[in-house]
C-alpha cells in the first residue's frame, strides 16, 4: 500500500492516520474532511485519483497539523518512528514536514527496519532534510522544481534560501545541475525535475524529457508539483519502474492541466478533478 506523510496548516489537528478517500465532497482521512487545495492534501487528492484509475487501494495517510512552528511535524516524526517498523507499506511519499536532520535520521532508521523495505519518495521539506542529512541516496525518487534542483546541486546550501547565486542563475541548464547534484551525492536514485520542461534523470544523466502539452499557468499555480508527486507515487505503487512512472506522471499532470485550462489564478482542485481522465489518456498512449 502507498502511504502519504505530511502536514496540513491547522495546528489543532493531532497526529491522524487512516485510508484517504476522494469523493464529491472532497478529501477525507479518518472521517476528517480536508480541502485538497494545496500542499500535502493536494498530493493526497491526486494520489487518490490516480490509485482509482490504477485499480489500487486508496492511499494511507499519516497527517498532522503544523503551521510552520514544527511542533506537529515532530509529533508525527515521533509517531512514525514508533509505528513504521511494524507496518506493511510498499511505497512511502514524504512531503511537507519541518526539515529536521535528527528526526529525519530516526525515521530513516525506522524505515530500514521495515520488511520488505518500501520504495521511498521525498518532496518538499522532507527532501530538504534528506539532502541535509547526507542520505539522499537512500531514496528512490526526489521531485524538485527549478529552485529546489539548484539547492540539491549546491553541496554547501543547507536550505534553498542559501543557494549560491552562481548556481541559482538562470544561465545554468537543468542537465548540468542534475549532474552536479549527483556528483555531490545529493540526489535520489531517480529525479523528476518539474518545470516548463519536466526532466526525468538518474546518475547516468537525463533519461526522458516531457514538454507537452504546455500550460504556462501551471508554474504560477500552487499545488501543481504536489499533484505530480501524488500521481508518480501511485504509479510507483502500481509496480512500474520509477523512471517510467515519473515520465507517465509528468505527461498525466500536463494532460490534466490541458483539460482544466487553468489561468495563473486557478485552484489545484481543478487539476485534481481532471487526473482520472488524464491518466487514462497517458496510459493509453503508453500502451500504443
Amino acid at each position, binding site marked *: 500500500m502507498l502511504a502519504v506523510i505530511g502536514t496540513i496548516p491547522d495546528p489543532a489537528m493531532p497526529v491522524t492516520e487512516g485510508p484517504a478517500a476522494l469523493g464529491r465532497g472532497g478529501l477525507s482521512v479518518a472521517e476528517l474532511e480536508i480541502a485538497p487545495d494545496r500542499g500535502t492534501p493536494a498530493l493526497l487528492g491526486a494520489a487518490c485519483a490516480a490509485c482509482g484509475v490504477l485499480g489500487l487501494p486508496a492511499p494511507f495517510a499519516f497527517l498532522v497539523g503544523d503551521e*510552520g512552528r514544527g511542533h506537529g511535524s515532530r509529533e508525527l516524526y515521533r509517531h512514525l518512528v514508533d509505528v513504521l517498523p511494524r507496518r506493511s507499506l510498499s511505497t512511502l511519499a514524504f512531503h511537507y514536514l519541518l526539515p529536521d536532520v535528527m528526526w529525519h535520521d530516526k525515521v530513516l532508521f525506522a524505515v530500514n527496519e521495515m520488511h520488505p523495505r518500501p520504495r521511498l519518495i521525498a518532496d518538499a521539506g522532507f527532501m530538504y532534510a534528506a539532502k541535509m542529512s547526507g542520505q539522499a541516496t537512500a531514496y528512490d525518487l526526489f521531485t524538485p522544481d527549478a529552485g529546489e534542483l539548484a539547492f540539491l546541486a549546491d553541496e554547501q546550501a543547507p536550505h534553498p534560501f542559501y543557494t549560491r547565486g552562481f548556481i541559482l542563475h538562470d544561465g545554468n541548464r537543468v542537465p548540468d545541475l542534475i549532474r552536479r547534484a549527483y556528483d555531490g551525492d545529493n540526489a535520489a536514485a531517480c529525479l523528476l525535475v518539474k518545470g516548463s520542461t519536466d526532466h526525468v534523470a538518474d546518475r547516468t544523466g537525463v533519461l526522458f524529457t516531457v514538454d507537452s502539452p504546455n500550460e504556462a499557468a501551471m*508554474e504560477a499555480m500552487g499545488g501543481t508539483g504536489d499533484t505530480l508527486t501524488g500521481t508518480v507515487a501511485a504509479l510507483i505503487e502500481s509496480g512500474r519502474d520509477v523512471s517510467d512512472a515519473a515520465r507517465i506522471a509528468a505527461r498525466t499532470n500536463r494532460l490534466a492541466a490541458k483539460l482544466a485550462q487553468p489561468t495563473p489564478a486557478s485552484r489545484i482542485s481543478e487539476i485534481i478533478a481532471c487526473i482520472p481522465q488524464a491518466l487514462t489518456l497517458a496510459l493509453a498512449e503508453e500502451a500504443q
Partner: protein
Amino acid sequence: MGFLDRLRKKAPSAPPASKADRGLLIFENTSEVIRAEKALKAAGFPVKVVGPPPEVRRGCDLAVEYPLIEGLNILRLLADSGAPPLDAIPVTGPLLTPVDLYHVKDFGDYLMVRAANMKITVEKATGVIVNVSGGGCPDVPYLAARLIGLRLDEAPSPREIGHTLCGYALGLAFEEMQRRCSQ
C-alpha cells in the same frame, strides 16, 4: 565478560546527525548572548551556547546555536525581545548569504516573482495575490491561505506571519513584487 568482549558487544549506534540544519546567532557581547539564550529557551526553542568558528567571530567569542529552518520565527522573537543578533548564519556554511536573485515571469494579466524556492503571483490590474507556490516547510500552505485573495497593500508580510526559511524566502519575493508593482 572481559573488557574487550564488552567493547565488541556494544550495540551499534547511529552516527552523529549532520549539523546542516543548525545555525549560529552572532552577538556583540556575552550579556546579549545570555539574554538571547534565555528568551529562546523560554519560548521552547532547542538552542545552546557555543564558540563560533574564527572566520565569523565578531563582537564576543560566544554564539547561540539554533534550528536554522526556524530562523524567521527566532529572529522575530529576538527583535521583539530587544536582543537582535548581529548576524544569523548556517553552521555548515558560515559564509553563505540569503538569496538575492529574483526570477520574474510575465503572464500578461499576471506577474510572478520567484525568490529561491518560493513564488508569488499577482493580478496586475488589481494587485490581488492569486497564487503562492513552491517551498517545502509547513508554513507555506498556511501562508498561502492567509495571502491569496488579498491585495499586496493589505496583505500581511510573510516575514511577519511566517515561521521558517521558506516563509522568509516568500517574504523576499513578496517585497520584490511590492517594489515592482509600485513602479
